């Protein structure tokens, strides 16, 4: 089983997403939650970091995007939206889970 990484900090304020991506191997999964979902937006200064890691599977938590008014904003290609039960499924399908706090 591959690793599930979670990132909950805004990429514009912290280096957490970059710290995660530097250690995430191809084939791993990265889930953006809480303020981490800002990293899912297309067309920002932070978009490139995710866009160029095509071999990583990226997810973003829908309720956190909705809360922040981002439901209608375009996301980086290849990011899958999930809800809380999808979060549970991901945690079940991967091992171990690393939270980049």
């Amino acid at each position, binding site marked *: 089983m591959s690793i599930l990484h979670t990132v*909950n*900090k*805004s990429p*514009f*304020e912290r280096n957490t997403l970059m710290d995660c991506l530097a250690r995430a191997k191809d084939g791993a999964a990265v889930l953006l939650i*809480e*303020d981490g979902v*800002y990293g899912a*937006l*297309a*067309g*920002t*200064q*932070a*978009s490139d970091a995710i866009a160029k890691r095509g071999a990583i599977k990226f997810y973003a938590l*829908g*309720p*956190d995007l*909705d*809360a*922040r*008014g*981002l*439901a*209608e*904003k375009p996301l980086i290609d290849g990011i899958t939206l999930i*809800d809380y039960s999808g979060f549970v499924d991901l945690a079940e399908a991967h091992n171990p889970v690393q939270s980049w706090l």
Partner: protein
Amino acid sequence: MDDFEDDEFDGPVKKFLFLNRKAPYGTIYALEGLEVVLITAAFDQDVSMVFADDGVFQIKKDQETSGINMKNFSPTYRALEGYEVEKVYAEKESLEARGLSEDDLVIPVEVLSAAELAELMDTQDVIVSF
């Protein structure tokens, strides 16, 4: 503020600039900052409110928080006008870095550059950062 009179607060008036730099919901800063601005404005102070860095996300339109079980406080920014907070700014560089424009915001703002923000900060008596 249960003053019986309708006259304005007659104590000293200072120029306060509130610099909001944090996204909403992930931390409590945005909500706390907003409450302090409203309280300060209720005392008839000269208030400027600036959204910069991730603070610009506070006034993003279309916030819908039922899925995360938190109160959506973005409508409260629209009450600023009633509190006579009329000097509201967003930093241009911060909006652009995040792929946002004025059309994305819940309230009208004056967009100013980082250099203009530096000038504005220079003219204040007090700067409060959240």
